[in-house]
């Protein structure tokens, strides 16, 4: 019973922790632009993150090898270093976007100045990272992020055309501007498969000292947690498709997502949406700061992990502090966090193959994994998603230009 309870808690944290500012921005904008036509892109992305999160969680539990241990070992120092630089650039952009998102959510709730709230957000995030144990961080932000379930209720209350919704789960070439459609397809898949989630999940398996006995928990967290997390993405897109598209509203602001919950559910819906966004985006900021520190520490063989406490892993601690300071310096310039979000998602798509290839190689290595190496199903899915990732990685930058960042 205790074990089932533990699994349920982990799944709840995974659901609440799935959505970040990239998911919110791309899902609401896709719904406002194409209605329900791109729901299948979320299925594609969620399938990818489930496949690779399960794989890297299993690798972490069995071989105690985290993603960037594998990157350096399998790709060599030179190519591995390029992968590290690409990963860190994307982590930094993601962290900057998330910190900007936290400040916007706080501004919508408090009315205080954006720059003052940026400072407050950074200080609070740094304190949380410094003081809280890993499991507390994961659970508190995950549970509070569950307030985003308000969008599931909103989606039902907005009475969408369920036939059209069902049709959206069937892959199609879409109607309207083809470049913009393809841009959103890449953005939605990329937002679901964003690399920091894999770095964080993999390192989390080692932080929580998983062993082979925890492989059931790993599978449940990855499959059920991310699937139900994907439900939040569906809800965001369906709500936006039902409310914003008919009125010709482009979703260009974070507050528009909150308005989508307020319209059918009133003030309670608005408050829950803003609180959910605040915690989901704060949790993602913490994850991406840690992911950046995990990557560099693992690559250079430093002591790492929250479980060692700050003084026990000083270079790891310094790494997440530097990440937060650099991200703050980016957003404090006044750059639009929503634009940084879109760019971070598109650039992360380009970096995805360098993350996924080493995971697939290690998960197949019987010298490391023994009987826990990939089976046929994991390999079929792994290769399928690797091809998907390679295709969207090549298409991402050209689509950014051709679609005018999704503006048409």
């Amino acid at each position, binding site marked *: 019973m205790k074990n089932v309870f533990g699994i349920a808690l982990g799944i709840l944290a995974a659901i609440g922790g799935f959505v970040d500012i990239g998911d919110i921005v791309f899902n609401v904008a896709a719904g406002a632009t194409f209605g329900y036509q791109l729901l299948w892109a979320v299925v594609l992305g969620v399938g990818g993150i489930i496949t690779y999160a399960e794989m890297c969680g299993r690798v972490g539990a069995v071989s105690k090898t985290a993603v960037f241990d594998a990157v350096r070992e399998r790709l060599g120092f030179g190519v591995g270093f390029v992968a590290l630089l*690409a990963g860190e650039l994307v982590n930094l952009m993601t962290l900057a976007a998330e910190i900007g998102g936290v400040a916007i959510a706080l501004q919508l709730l408090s009315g205080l100045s954006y720059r003052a709230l940026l400072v407050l957000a950074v200080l609070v995030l740094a304190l949380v990272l410094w003081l809280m144990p890993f499991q507390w961080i994961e659970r508190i932000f995950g549970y509070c992020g569950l307030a985003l379930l308000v969008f599931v209720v909103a989606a039902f209350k907005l009475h969408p055309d369920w036939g059209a919704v069902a049709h959206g789960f069937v892959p199609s070439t879409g109607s309207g501007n083809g470049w913009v459609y393809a841009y959103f397809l890449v953005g939605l898949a990329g937002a679901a498969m964003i690399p920091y989630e894999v770095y964080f999940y993999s390192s989390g398996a080692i932080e929580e000292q998983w062993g082979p006995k925890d492989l059931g928990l790993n599978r449940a967290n990855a499959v059920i947690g991310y699937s139900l997390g994907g439900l939040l993405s569906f809800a965001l897109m369906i709500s936006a498709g039902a409310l914003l598209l008919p009125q010709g509203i482009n979703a260009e602001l974070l507050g528009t997502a909150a308005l989508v919950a307020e319209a059918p559910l*009133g*003030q309670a819906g*608005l408050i829950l949406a803003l609180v959910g966004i605040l915690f989901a985006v704060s949790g993602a900021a913490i994850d991406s700061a840690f992911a950046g520190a995990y990557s560099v520490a693992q690559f250079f063989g430093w002591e790492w992990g929250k479980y060692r406490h700050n003084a026990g892993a000083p270079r790891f601690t310094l790494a997440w502090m530097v990440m937060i300071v650099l991200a703050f310096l980016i957003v404090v310039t006044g750059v639009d966090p929503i634009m940084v979000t879109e*760019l971070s998602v598109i650039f992360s798509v380009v970096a995805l193959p360098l993350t996924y290839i080493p995971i697939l190689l290690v998960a197949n290595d019987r010298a490391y994994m023994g009987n826990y190496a990939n089976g046929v199903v994991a390999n079929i899915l792994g290769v399928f998603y690797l091809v998907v990732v390679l295709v969207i990685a090549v298409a991402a930058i050209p689509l*950014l230009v051709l679609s005018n960042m999704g503006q048409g």
Partner: protein
Amino acid sequence: MHRAFLLAAALLLICGCGVPQQLSKQAEEVHSVAAEGALLAHEASEGSLDTFTREHAKALRKLLGQLRPAIEDDRLAHTSDSVDAALANLAEHPGDRTNAGRLESRLEDAAKAADELAG
């Protein structure tokens, strides 16, 4: 890292930073802001959080402010100014429900006018 930032900056320049130059695209953008403003005003008339109404109205004005210098068509410029004035009014009196109801109508009218220009 430095090169990647330069690449990102170059891409943004190529993309034109998202400010449309064609009249129809500009009218669509004004329509979008007006329609969202009308929705915000509607929620304010029903009793929303004053802080949210004020801050979101300001954010919508900022979006419009980025577009406004690029608008050359007089009719669209007039509509855009009317949307901006209504949003400023909403941001100034977020808790006045009766006023919010009036602003909702004004913003709906502006959204229709912009829609006609979008063609």
